[in-house]
């Protein structure tokens, strides 16, 4: 079909609905169609438009498409959209189309003894690292076998991350970061206990989140003591703690006698005036880190010189952050129940580029989709995960994932989420690591 065939120039067209000129664009070159405006009936909805695109592409099996117009998904007919927004039906309407994604499906859940505060998935071995409120770090394989349990933390584990296939880092309310090493290849006997290689001390408050950079072996940590810690996991580089911390309660803290060797930070970065809630490395440049805090600011750190580069002040206390690498955007989840997108570059003129609304409680974790630069998933204390497309900032979330399981009230908070090759892995107050398969499309 060419564009002229669609036009009613032959004069035989007698249908009552009028037609509008539509220009189809896409950001995916593999499904691109000619961008010349074509006339389509104004009463078409998503399905009809999707059929047109499929026809234009001449696809063997129909691909469902979604249509974006002015930052939101087209949910009504074109006619309705134009009249609702007071647009002229004479002008050319630009519709951006993307592959529609189908809803994610629940796959599995791994039961824990206590709340799950943190999840992390290793890229190749697809092992899941989970940190729990019982102070234990667990390593699971895909078939729900707990391979290793890491004991040693004297308090709640708030965050745990894979550094490489064999190395992981965790931290929590006992203010220390622990480095763990597991056998990446063989599956030893189930539930084998492991101990930390080293403990990194320096924080004076709970470590809320850490971020790791696998290539350099560096770790950023966010502390409730308003400090950002910068650490190395290469023990040869690490500085020994100058003095052993005073231990007044020796009988309660057994790690002083049997614990791993302790090392100090490369630098504790000062600047925030309230608890730091999350940190993240810039994926393109491991010498740049971003930290967000309850003091409403996003701070950019130069980790080579340990200096504060930039401070951006937002409207609300921020609780979670992730980088959308290809868009150079920072997505920040706030205590005010929404996600804001920020351009962290110093040259950017506006603080907030757009806001994603939909959660009904604090957004505490964010994870980008590795295979699509526009999608990310958020975890919130309202008990849901939501999948977002940053192109459709007005439409709200695309899909909402609830907690699966018996006897749940639906209000169980979700504490962490990661969108990995395994699917969307999340952990929360329901004491489970829940895995939902990654929604298809894109």
């Amino acid at each position, binding site marked *: 079909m060419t564009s002229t065939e669609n036009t009613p120039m032959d004069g035989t067209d007698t249908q009552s609905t009028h037609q509008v000129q539509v220009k189809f664009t896409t950001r995916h070159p593999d499904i691109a169609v000619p961008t010349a405006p074509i006339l389509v009936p104004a009463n078409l909805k998503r399905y009809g438009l999707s059929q047109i695109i499929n026809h234009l592409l001449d696809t063997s099996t129909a691909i469902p498409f979604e249509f974006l117009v002015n930052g939101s998904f087209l949910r009504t007919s074109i006619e309705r959209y134009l009249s609702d927004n007071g647009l002229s039906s004479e002008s050319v309407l630009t519709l951006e189309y993307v592959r529609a994604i189908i809803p994610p499906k629940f796959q599995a859940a791994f039961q824990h003894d206590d*709340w799950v505060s943190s999840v992390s998935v290793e890229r190749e071995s697809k092992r899941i690292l989970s940190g729990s409120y019982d102070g234990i770090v667990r390593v699971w394989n895909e078939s729900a076998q707990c391979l290793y349990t890491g004991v040693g933390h004297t308090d709640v584990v708030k965050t745990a991350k894979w550094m490489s296939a064999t190395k992981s880092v965790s931290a929590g309310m006992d203010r220390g970061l622990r480095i763990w090493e597991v056998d990446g290849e063989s599956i030893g006997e189930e539930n084998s206990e492991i101990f930390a290689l080293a403990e990194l001390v320096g924080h004076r408050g709970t470590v809320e989140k850490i971020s790791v950079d696998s290539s350099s072996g560096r770790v950023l940590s966010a502390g409730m003591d308003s400090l950002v810690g910068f650490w190395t996991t290469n023990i040869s580089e690490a500085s020994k703690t100058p003095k052993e911390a005073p231990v007044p309660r020796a009988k309660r803290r057994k790690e002083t006698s049997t614990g791993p060797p302790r090392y100090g930070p490369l630098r504790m970065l000062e600047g925030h005036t*309230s608890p730091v809630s999350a940190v993240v490395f810039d994926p393109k440049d491991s010498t740049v880190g971003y930290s967000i805090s*309850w003091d409403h600011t996003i701070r950019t750190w130069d980790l080579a010189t340990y200096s504060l580069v930039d401070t951006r002040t937002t409207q609300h206390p921020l609780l979670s952050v992730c980088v959308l690498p290809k868009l150079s955007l920072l997505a920040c989840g706030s*205590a005010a129940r929404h996600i804001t997108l920020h351009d962290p570059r110093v040259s950017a003129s506006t603080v907030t580029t757009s806001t994603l609304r939909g959660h009904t409680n604090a957004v505490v974790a964010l994870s980008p989709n590795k295979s699509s630069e526009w999608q990310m998933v958020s975890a919130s204390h309202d008990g849901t995960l939501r999948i977002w497309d940053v192109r459709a900032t007005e439409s709200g979330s695309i899909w909402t994932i609830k907690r699966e399981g018996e006897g749940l009230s639906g209000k169980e908070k979700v504490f962490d989420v990661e969108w990995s090759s395994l699917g969307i892995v999340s952990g929360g107050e329901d004491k489970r690591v829940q895995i939902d398969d990654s929604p298809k499309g894109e």
Partner: protein
Amino acid sequence: MYPEIDPVYDSDDTDVEETNTIGNIPLEFYDECPHIGYDINGKKIMRPAKGAALDALLDSIEVPRGWTGMTDRNTGGDLMLTQEELEMVRRIQMGEVPVDGYDPYAPMVEYFTSKTEVMPLSAAPEPKRRFIPSKHEAKRVMKIVKAIREGRIVPNKPKQEEPQFYDIWADDAPPRPDHIMNIPAPKLPPPTHDESYNPPEEYLPTEVEKKAWEELDPEDRDKDYLPRKHSALRLVPGYDGFVKERFERCLDLYLAPRVRRNKLNIDPESLLPKLPSPQELKPFPTTTATVYRGHEGKVRTISIDSSGVWLATGGDDGTVRIWEILTGREVWKVKLGEDESVNTVKWRPGREAGILAAAAGDDVYLIIPPIFDHETEAASKELLSVGWGYAEVVKGDPLKKEPPAKWSKPSDKLADAGVAAIVTVRVLVKHIAWHRRGDYFATVSPEGQNRAVAIHQLSKHQSQSPFRKSKGIIQRVEFHPFRPVLFVATQRYIRTYDLAKQELAKTLQPGSRWISSFDVHSGGDNLIVGSYDKRLLWHDLDLSTKPYRTLRYHQKAIRSVKYHQGGLPLFCSASDDGTVQVFHGKVFGDLMENALIVPLKVLRGHAVKQALGVLDVEWHPKECWLFSAGADGTARLWN
């Protein structure tokens, strides 16, 4: 047509033929008889022969002249027509005049002439009025023109369709011309179902109701009739109360005074003060973010540490619990008393140490929860242990009167749990207020009379009671945020004492009967007072001793009021009706402008248990987060 009768002899042919004498009745009456009538002599006239034989006979016979084939109704015989009659029938058929010889075009005799005579009978000339326009007509035309101009006559008016049905109740009283003194009579209500002659069964009174109605005094009856059912309208008897009812209606209309009320023509919106919309005053807490569950029984008190990370609560179960504020995780707890509830917990201000003061029964426990890092913990221990020796020295002095409280070391079990010191006040402690530097704290024991207020010094482990005699039941005390001033609230008054000069500075009269709590604005010049008689009062210390503003929005007693101390212009009140109300309260720097108070939000969520709702509130030191402790056993975070 009968032939002309020639009146000669034997012209009478009555006896000639036997004639049917049945008279003027249809012959069909005889259809079933063999005869068709009677002759003059009473003999039957037999029906003439008919049938196939006859037909054959007739065929053989020549048809007589004038035979028509029809039957004469009178005789029953064949109807014969004469030649003249046939001619007449033909003429009628042809549309001619039936009678032969009639001339329709005979010359007309002109009885009245149609011609104008050349020489008429009267030769009078035409009158003048025939030639001039008629004045009368002009008058009539002008009348119509005037009516048209005035609109009384509308030319070419479309005919108005008369409605087919009428509302018979519509204009039972014709409208009177509008006059200021005319007040139309109030209408009677239209009849209802039970006044119908045939009401539905459910409207009919039962025997009991009927009896009760009859026994009542006619004046006390709520209606003057009993519904009755009649199968048809014509069976309805006359209404015996008709005249009386009409008379009473007339009396009503006649005697009832009708007064024209002057309506105030004021827009109600204009009476409201111009307040900014709550949307412009964001941020303020709107929804529950976290629910802290764990306490058994009421949560009495709540406190957030100065870094804004750890939330401490105390409740009726005798425990003090510490929570992670966002996740709602209970991090630590200690049980202080077996059967005593924890009435108040308060973090010591300042970040260098983490000391929590909790009052259960007569004792104030100074606790160092093991949630801090080693340095903070060590600093806290240092602060609390430095005074032990000092206390011993003072005890030796016999001149000093007995201090209001005794400092003691906790038992091993409590010391293990984190309690570092116990201050025993000997009267039930209801409230603790820390001085901003964290060295002094004041306790309030409302039942303590002249020892109701005690001020305790951390560094010296000393206690003293500043007042010699009681001035009423003391409810609360607070320190001024930066001056050496102590605010003391009794049931009715709030007194401010200058601690440097040791004298009474000012007495505030909120005007409420029983003050439950108050709070001092971080600027130090404004106070909010909550009272058990549901009132929230804003005092401006520079303005007057009377409240600047009284807010009466709660349905039940107010338990706690708090200002946001971290720079946001917010304050809130918690009440037994289960709600927390959040207000915008902006204090301006210049003295000319009074504080701006805007109600923002009612936070609902706490359940009311045993007539108790929200018992305590606390603001986060920096964010617009609000913590509330409820009688339903939960604490909540609102943001």
